[in-house]
Structures are given as structure tokens and as C-alpha cells.
């Protein structure tokens, strides 16, 4: 295509500056562009705004059996059962922590696997976990009980591959530096990736 015609279509020169033999072609392009504009929609259809708002506001759900399991309640327990429970807790707690990224497989509840997350964030007032499993809302709060800047917390995740980040002080998002895998988050940063295997290996 003639460079002068390109310059006209780019708005760099006027129609009068084109040689006569190119003006007809320029007029054809103007008509084409006008038709192209006229053929499309002027704006978003009615109802799209409602669809979007509904999509970002999850419907309230009725409490299910998982809520029943997770709701704290007082229980009465015999001394013998207490000893057995303590032994079980001890057996789980003494397992060595390997370090480097989240650690999974402590327990499985209703198809979910508890995964332990650890991050160094000295100076943070709060650290939360957010990921595809929480619709990217800051969910599980990590704790730093001894104040050494190392925050830990556990989340019950479904087996599969999950993307996640840590949210520091409710505003600062950071990937897990200990994660072994990362993926582009589409916002110029990286999400950490954790693969959760079912405990029974199936």
C-alpha cells in the first residue's frame, strides 16, 4: 500500500495533500471504516452489568455438613480417650518439616488435604493466604506466635493444582518465595503454585 495513503489513514496528512490518483482510494477507506464503526454495537447489552456484579458476589449458601464439622463446640471426653487423642496428635506433630514451600498431607478431611504454608514476613502485622481455592479473597490467617517473623498456617485444600499468594497487612500481595513452581498471574506478577496429592495416592 502506498505510504502516502498510510500516512493519510494515520491522520498525519490531509486528503488535499494526497495526489489525485490516491484520493479515490482514500475515500474508499474512509467509507469502509465508517461502515465498520456503524456495523458494531454501540455499547454493552442490557444485563451485562448485572451478570458481572452477580459473578463477583457469591450467593449466600446454606450451611452444610462441612460447616457442621468446622463449627467449634464443647465436647466431653473420657480420660482414656484424651490420652489416645494426645498420642495421635503427638505422632503427627513430631513429623519433621522439610522446609521450602507448602507442606501437605497431614490429614485429610472429606476429600480435603491440610497443607501447611510458611513465609518469612518480619514486620507484617497480618498475613493471610489467598488463592483460587478462596476465590482470591484473603482467607486463612497465618500466625506468628513467637514474633520471629515466620508466619505459618494450614489450609484444607482439595487435591489438585492450586495457585496462591500471601496477603501482607491486607494490601500487599506477594508470592511464596519457597514455592517450587510459579505462574504468570496476568497482572504483571507471579502466582505461586502448589500441587496437592490425595493422601491415599489415588
Amino acid at each position, binding site marked *: 500500500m502506498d505510504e502516502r495513503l498510510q500516512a493519510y489513514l*494515520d491522520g498525519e496528512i490531509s486528503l488535499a495533500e494526497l495526489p489525485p490518483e490516491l484520493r479515490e482510494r482514500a475515500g474508499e477507506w474512509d467509507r469502509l471504516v465508517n461502515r465498520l464503526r456503524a456495523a*458494531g454495537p454501540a455499547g*454493552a447489552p442490557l444485563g451485562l452489568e448485572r451478570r458481572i456484579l452477580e459473578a*463477583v458476589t457469591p450467593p449466600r449458601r446454606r450451611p452444610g455438613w462441612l460447616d457442621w464439622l468446622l463449627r467449634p463446640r464443647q465436647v466431653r471426653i473420657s480420660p482414656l480417650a484424651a490420652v489416645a487423642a494426645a498420642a495421635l496428635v503427638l505422632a503427627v506433630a513430631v513429623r519433621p518439616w522439610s522446609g521450602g514451600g507448602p507442606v501437605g498431607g497431614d490429614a485429610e478431611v472429606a476429600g480435603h488435604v491440610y497443607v501447611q504454608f510458611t513465609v518469612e514476613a518480619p514486620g507484617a502485622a497480618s498475613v493471610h493466604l489467598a488463592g483460587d481455592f478462596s476465590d482470591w479473597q484473603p482467607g486463612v490467617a497465618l500466625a506468628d506466635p513467637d514474633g520471629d517473623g515466620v508466619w505459618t498456617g494450614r489450609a484444607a485444600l482439595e487435591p489438585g493444582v492450586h495457585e496462591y499468594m500471601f496477603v501482607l497487612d491486607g494490601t500487599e500481595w506477594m508470592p511464596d518465595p519457597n514455592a517450587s513452581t510459579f505462574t504468570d*498471574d496476568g497482572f504483571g*506478577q507471579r502466582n505461586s503454585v502448589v500441587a496437592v496429592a490425595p493422601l491415599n495416592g489415588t
Partner: protein
Amino acid sequence: MQRTDAELVRDILEGREPAFAELVRRYQDLLYRHAVRMTGAADEAEDVVQAAFVKAYRGLARCEDPERVGSWLFRIGANACKDHLKARRRRRTTPLEDVPEVPSGGDGAAGEAERADLRRALDGALGGLSDERREAFVLKHVEGLSYEEMAELLEASVPALKMRVHRAREELQGLLDGKV
């Protein structure tokens, strides 16, 4: 007085939901028009725009320049279009000219058949361009943006965008020869 984009972003992050509705109203037309032009299908464009706004809502805390949240939203929408087209190509090989026609909101019955023919020809020709060239051509000639505005939206250089538009025109000239 209308809130600025930065004020809207702040209000959304502080949990005031109506602010997000206002942000949607402010930018849905731009994203939708672009998505229709890129996908060639109104229903797919709605899905793409919805997904883009949901992604933006969830990642809003990561918008580094709230004053220019519109550009940031557009980039998310434009990337969503390209991701959608890639996924569609993997699923099937339907050429763009075969997807349902985009409603024009017509202006009467006279000449409607002729306009429909032209629309199909234009959509088919646009569908023959690469995603990048179609994107640049649509922004330049349908949205009427300057190269500088396009550069900000697409995070590309002005010379690179000029090259894409020039190549798109040359391709379209060949594809539409005799139809316009």
C-alpha cells in the same frame, strides 16, 4: 460530583460494592465493543467481558496506578480476548466468518440485507487477520484511538503499533478487494 477512577478503586478496596458497579458502568462499553470486534460473536464477547471484570475485581489490590484503572482494565479485557481466541482455536477450527452475526442495532429495514452482506464480509476479513493486527486495527479505526493512546493500553511502542495497523490495512485491502 463524579468520583475519579482512583476514588472508585479506593472505595471498592474498602468494601463499598456500589463503587464496583460504577466502575463496570464506566468501562463495560469499551471492553464489550472491543471483545465483539475481536471474537466476532456477541455472546462470546459477553462471557469474555464478564471474566475480565471478575478477574479485575479479584486482583484490584494489585492495580499499581488506580488513576489509570481504565487502561489496566482494558489490558485485562484485551488479554482475555486473546486467551479466548487461543482457546477457541484449540477447541475447533471455525473461521470467524461462520460465527453468529453481531447485532448492529440497525436503523431500519432499508438496505438491511446489503448491510448484512457487508458486515459478514468485514467480519470475515477481520477474522483473517492475526490477533495482534486485528486488535491494533480495531483500536485505531473502530475505537478511533491515537497511536499514543493505543501504546498506553497495549503496552507496546508506537512504531510497533503503526506497523501492525499498516500490515492489517494491506491484508484487509486484499481480503476485501471488490467487496466494498
